[in-house]
């Protein structure tokens, strides 16, 4: 295991709310980011992810807990002594400075000499694909170009860690995908420890080594994208990452459960008769002819999306989201049509 680069130990941040009084923006968050890792803080707006990031950067001071970077306690260290590169949502390019001077800023502050600055800035602009933009003013650039200048500026002085605060939310969808790939490639190439904040689960899954999901100021689950997808720890995580069905299941024996009257072989380790919550992803449910099933479903809606077809299927008292990807070789199902629903044990996850 790589050494720990950023360590948050039970940090909290409170705010005075005019109506609710004192509220926690961040509550007892602990987190360890390994050297060279890209960790994403993912959550809905107001969950405390940006505040956490801003505390790592030093823009906010935690009310409790400690923050260390590279083994050094920086809880009360000013942002300019932390050695962090920060990429802002609005890019925060200095409007009165050229692209070159924006990128050179951190080096000028360090007092590097002119030729060294010119070389370093030239290299990093090359790296982000803006080699000939050095004399432009920020307002002459497109959003994507401004974003790349912001990125170049944040990495040029070789910071200890790199922090991103929703860097792509001002870009259009196509550019967003392109930029996140660039960011990921650059991060891997220079091997810099990175914390990335976003509310977009797809972006998080595409870019991260590890994701920490936050809800109401607390980290509710950490893990790789597939862990979060296949083994969500809570209904919140299951619903936030991807689309999901949450279905009630009844334990009928040690090795069997029943969902809406359908029996499935699944060892839950729970007592017989107990009701459990089951996470089932739409693509893990199979629709077929209802060959003598005790209970059959009925197609309530169909949406053709190209790579897949989404169905809403009523089954007993539940409505299921189901995705089918095999209509290139089978005719699609019609609304109102009765249908057989198959669950697979591998596609069922029991919530604690």
């Amino acid at each position, binding site marked *: 295991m790589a050494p720990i680069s950023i360590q948050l130990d039970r940090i909290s941040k409170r705010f005075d709310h005019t109506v609710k009084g004192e509220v926690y923006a961040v509550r007892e968050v602990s987190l360890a980011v390994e050297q060279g890792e890209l960790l994403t803080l993912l959550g809905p707006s107001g969950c405390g992810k940006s505040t956490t990031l801003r505390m790592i*950067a030093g823009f906010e001071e935690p009310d409790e807990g400690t923050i260390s970077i590279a083994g050094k306690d920086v809880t009360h260290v000013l942002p*300019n002594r932390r050695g962090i590169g920060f990429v*802002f949502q609005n890019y925060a390019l200095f409007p009165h400075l050229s692209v070159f001077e924006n990128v050179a800023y951190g080096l000028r502050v360090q007092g590097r000499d002119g030729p060294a600055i010119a070389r370093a800035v030239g290299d990093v602009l090359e790296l982000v694909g803006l080699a000939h933009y050095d004399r432009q003013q920020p307002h002459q650039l497109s959003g994507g170009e401004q974003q790349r200048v912001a990125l170049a500026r944040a990495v040029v002085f070789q910071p200890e860690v790199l922090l991103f605060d929703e860097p792509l939310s001002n870009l259009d969808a196509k550019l967003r995908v392109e930029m996140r790939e660039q960011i990921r490639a650059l991060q891997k190439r220079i091997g810099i420890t990175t914390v990335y904040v976003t509310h977009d689960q797809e972006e998080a899954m595409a870019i991260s080594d590890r994701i920490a999901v936050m809800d109401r100021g607390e980290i509710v689950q950490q893990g790789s994208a597939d862990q979060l997808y296949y083994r969500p720890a809570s209904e919140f995580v299951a619903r936030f990452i991807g689309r999901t069905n949450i279905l009630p299941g009844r334990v009928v024996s040690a090795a069997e459960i029943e969902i809406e009257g359908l029996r499935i072989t699944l060892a839950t380790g729970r007592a017989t008769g107990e009701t459990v919550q089951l996470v089932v992803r739409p693509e893990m449910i199979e629709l077929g002819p209802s060959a003598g099933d005790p209970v059959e479903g009925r197609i309530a809606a169909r949406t053709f999306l190209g790579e897949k077809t989404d169905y809403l299927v009523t089954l007993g008292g539940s409505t299921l989201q189901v995705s089918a990807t095999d209509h290139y070789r089978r005719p699609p199902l019609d609304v109102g049509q009765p249908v057989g629903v198959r669950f697979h044990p591998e596609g069922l996850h029991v919530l604690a």
Partner: protein
Amino acid sequence: MAAGQTASWRRVAADPALLTAILAVWILLLLFVLYPLAHLLERAFFDESGFTLEPLLASLVDSGHQAAFFNSLILATAVGVLGTALGFLFALTAVRAGLSRHWLTFLDAAALLPLVSPPFTTSIAIIFSFGPRGFITHDLLGLTNVSAYGFWSTMSAETLTYFPIAYLTLRPILAAIDPNLEEMAFSLGGSRWRIFRTVTVPLAVPGFANAFLLLFAASLADFATPLILAGNSFPVLPTQAYLQITGLFDFKGGAVLSLILLVPAVAVFLLQRAWVGRRTYVTVTGKVGQRSRSRAIAPWASALLVAACVAVAVIIIYFYALLLIASLVVAFGANNSFTLHHYEVIFTEGLPAIRDTLIIAAIGMPLGGFYGVLVGYLIARRNFPGRRAMELVAMINYALPGTIVGIAYLIAFNDPPVALTGGVLIIVACYVFRYSPTGIRATVALLQQIDRSLEEASSSLGAGSGETFRRITLPLIAPAFFAGLGVVFIRSMTAISATIFLVSISWTLITVRILENMTEMALGPAAAFSVFVIVVVFIVVAGLSAILVRLRAPAAGAAARSFLGG
């Protein structure tokens, strides 16, 4: 979320530049704001037997004083509202009417004339025009027996004199409102009038409040205009207090009277804070959108705006033409033959006053400009214990009527431990702490529109707070800095209300000489002095503008170009 940064001494102590700045500002505020004020209060409320309210109560029941109190409020409110409206008219025209450079320069020059003039100039022009032997009332209309004195003439003179403050406050704010916002509202199907009401005006609200406050306070504090124009029928507090002291040598009574003026000044200040303080207006971010020429104002409305501004500009220019003519004729209205005699007078026997005034202005200008930006930055951007107290204390000398500041300085610095009376430092200090709040407010207003992330970016790139201020904040708030610089210089050349108490045999001022000339009915030299002051101020302000153009401060956009006039 950024609003929640806690104010702690630990945070401040970790930042030597910040700590030094805060301590330095507090020491200055203690010495030049609180210390004189404490002395004044002591003089007003203590006699040999200790604390007493008797002089205050006696003053409050005096019906003449009550009339003066209400007159002052009515006058200040009228000047605040009309001046803000006029300033907004000019700012809107300059920013949105799509005028050519030449028209803009013309409007700027006309609007700024009153601001760069010594006191009495509008008053003199009004008397020349509307007095018993006035050019308009007597020569053109053939009226006799008219009075140019009272509420209407005082209010008109003060509005014309002070509305440029509102113009300077509102123009950069309007310029910083992205026309895209208006475009967007326009595209949503709003009528132009609706957009103006629901987008443009609300975004300019901090500017309105600032402008109204500045004008209200300026009118409350002004005694030069009412001294000449208000006459006996319309007494106001500052003149009453001034006459109490110079006429009756009743320092205690004058001090008490001017202290009453403190109540409305403080009330307006607190009202403004409560109203504007809760809203944030970030329209300048590091992300630069496409700027478009605004179509949010209809062509006929543009024409109307321009026509109104030109009408006002013509009135102002007419007044100043009168002043220029009066300085070049033997005796205006009586003997209109050409002479340069008045200028000979001011450059011979008037020379010491000219020299002293220029030295004082030259010292005060850089000090005041830097002080204003520093305090504005600390208040708007840094979080430290006592921030609000600092904001309040920094505004005191501005909000106080000039007479009270003058008397307070006179009492406080007459004797050891800090004996400054008679010297140059006392006058410079008076100007810096009395007129920098314009720069403070301009800085705060501008900073409210610059996203914090720019400073955070600088900080994350390794710059300390001092370096961030120098490299990022200062260039972005350069328009405010030069506005502060300009205002301190202009006031150093033109103010009288406070410093009339502080001049001495070794250090005197042009404005005081003008007042002396006017009381001796030597209107020619008074006019010549005024013309001289206007010319000097215009040269310096033009120089500042040239520097500003070279600095290219995009935060204020095109507003920076002709910010202080051509």
